[in-house]
C-alpha cells in the first residue's frame, strides 16, 4: 500500500535542478518564466531545488562546453535515484549554432542517456511545461521499476 502511495507521489512532486552548461541564457529565462505567476508550474508540484541532492529532474541547457562538461556530469551523478534528465532547447541535443566550435564538447547524449528533450531555440513556456509533465510521468515509471 505504501509503495503505491510513494510511487504516485513521485509524479506529483518533482523537484527540478537546473544546470547551465554554457547556454546563451535564452533557455534559462524561459525556464524561469515557467515558474512565474502566469504559467505557475508550482501548481503541478514543480519546485526549483537548491542542490542536486534534493532534485528529481535535472534540466540541462546549453551546448555542454569543454569547461562545463565535467561539472555537468558530476552534478548529474550527485542526484539520488530515481532521476530523470531533461534537455532544454536545441543546444544540448545538437549544439545548435555553437556546433563546430573549439570550446564545445557536446552534445550531451555522448555522455549520459537523456529521457526527455524539449525542442526549440528557445522553447516556449508551454512546451517546457509539457516536457516537464512528461518527465514527471517517466519519473513515476522509474520509481515503480525500483526494487
Amino acid at each position, binding site marked *: 500500500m505504501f509503495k503505491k502511495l510513494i510511487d504516485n507521489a513521485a509524479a506529483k512532486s518533482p523537484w527540478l535542478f537546473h544546470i547551465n552548461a554554457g547556454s546563451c541564457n535564452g533557455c534559462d529565462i524561459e525556464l524561469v518564466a515557467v515558474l512565474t505567476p502566469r504559467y505557475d508550474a508550482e501548481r503541478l508540484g514543480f519546485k526549483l531545488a537548491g*542542490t542536486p541532492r534534493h532534485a528529481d529532474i535535472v534540466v540541462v541547457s546549453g551546448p555542454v562546453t569543454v569547461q562545463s562538461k565535467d561539472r555537468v556530469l558530476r552534478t548529474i551523478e550527485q542526484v539520488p535515484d530515481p532521476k530523470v534528465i531533461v534537455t532544454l532547447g536545441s543546444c544540448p541535443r545538437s549544439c545548435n549554432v555553437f556546433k563546430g566550435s573549439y570550446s564545445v564538447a557536446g552534445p550531451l547524449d555522448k555522455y549520459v542517456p537523456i529521457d526527455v528533450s524539449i525542442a526549440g531555440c528557445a522553447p516556449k513556456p508551454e512546451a517546457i511545461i509539457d516536457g516537464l509533465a512528461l518527465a514527471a510521468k517517466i519519473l513515476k515509471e522509474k520509481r515503480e521499476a525500483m526494487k
Partner: protein
Amino acid sequence: MEFTDILIYAVYILIFPGALFTCLFGLWLAGVDRKVVARMQKRKGPPISQPAWDFLKLCGKETVIPAHAARGVYLAAPYIGLASLIVTVLFIPLGGLQAFSTGADTVVILYLLTIPTLAMIFGGSASGSPFAGVGASRTMVSIMAYELPFILVILAVGKGMTPDGYYFTFSLEQITNVQSVFGPNIFDWRLLPAAVAMLLVIPCEVGQHPFDVGEAETEICEGPLVEYSGKPLAVFKLSHAIKMFVMTALFCALFLGGITTGMLWLDVVLALCFCTAVTLVSMTLLNAISARWRVEQLFKFFWTVVSGLALASLLLVWFC
C-alpha cells in the same frame, strides 16, 4: 499505574495529540501556507496536499551518505529533532486538552524547542559540506536572535496573569485557567506588544521566509540540508511542518487560551482554527510580501525591535 492509564497515555503519545495527528496537521498547515502564498501572488498554487506528497516522494528516494560524513550523527539527527517536537506537543494545551503537565511547562518547552534546531546544526555539520557549515553557523545566529525575545515574552505572560499582579507562573495549565477567568491575554493591552513580538518570533523559530537565513536556498544551497536526500530529508521537511503547528499552538495557549464552549472536542477544533489563523497572520503574510533578510539585519531586528516590544510588555505587567 492501571492498564487503562497506560492505554490513555499511549493514545496521547501515538495518536492524539501526539505523533500521528501532529504530523498530519503540520503537513496540512504547511499546505495551507503554500496555497495562500500562491493566491497572494496571483498564482493558482499547489494543492493543499502538496507537502504530504513531497514527504512521500522523499521517502521513496535513494539516501545518499557523503563519503566524509559522520554516519551516525548524520542519520540520527533528523529523527531526534522530530521526536523532541512530538514531545513538545504533548506539553501544549490544545483547547484545554493537555496530555502532560508539569509545574514549569514553558521552561520545558523552551528547552525542547531548541533541540530540533540543534539537531539540524549537528546533522549539517556532520555532513562535512562547507555550505552546511555556513548554514549551521547562520542557524546558530538565528537561534540567539529569537531566543531572547522569546524568553521575555514567556516571562511577561507568566507575570501578567492576574490584575493584582499577585503570582508568577511557568505552568501553561495555570495560564489557561487564569485566561478562562479574565479573558484571553491578547485582549490585555499590557500584553499586546508581547503578542506582536511572539508573532515575529514564530517565523524565525520555524525558519520561514524572510527569516530563513540558515536555509537560504539561493545563497548557500539550503544550508544544513545541502547533502541530505531521501528519508532523512523527508523527516527534516516534516519537522519543519510540525514546527509551524507547535509554535502556533504555543501562541494560542499563551494568548488565546481559556476560550471554552463547554464541549472538549469543540474546544479542540476551535484551537486548531486559531492555529491556522495564526499561521496565516504570522507566517504566510510575511512570507508572501518580503524578501530574505541578511544575517546581521535579522540579528539587529530581533535584539532591538522585537526584544524591545517584549521588554515593554514585561515592564508594563510588572509595574502597571
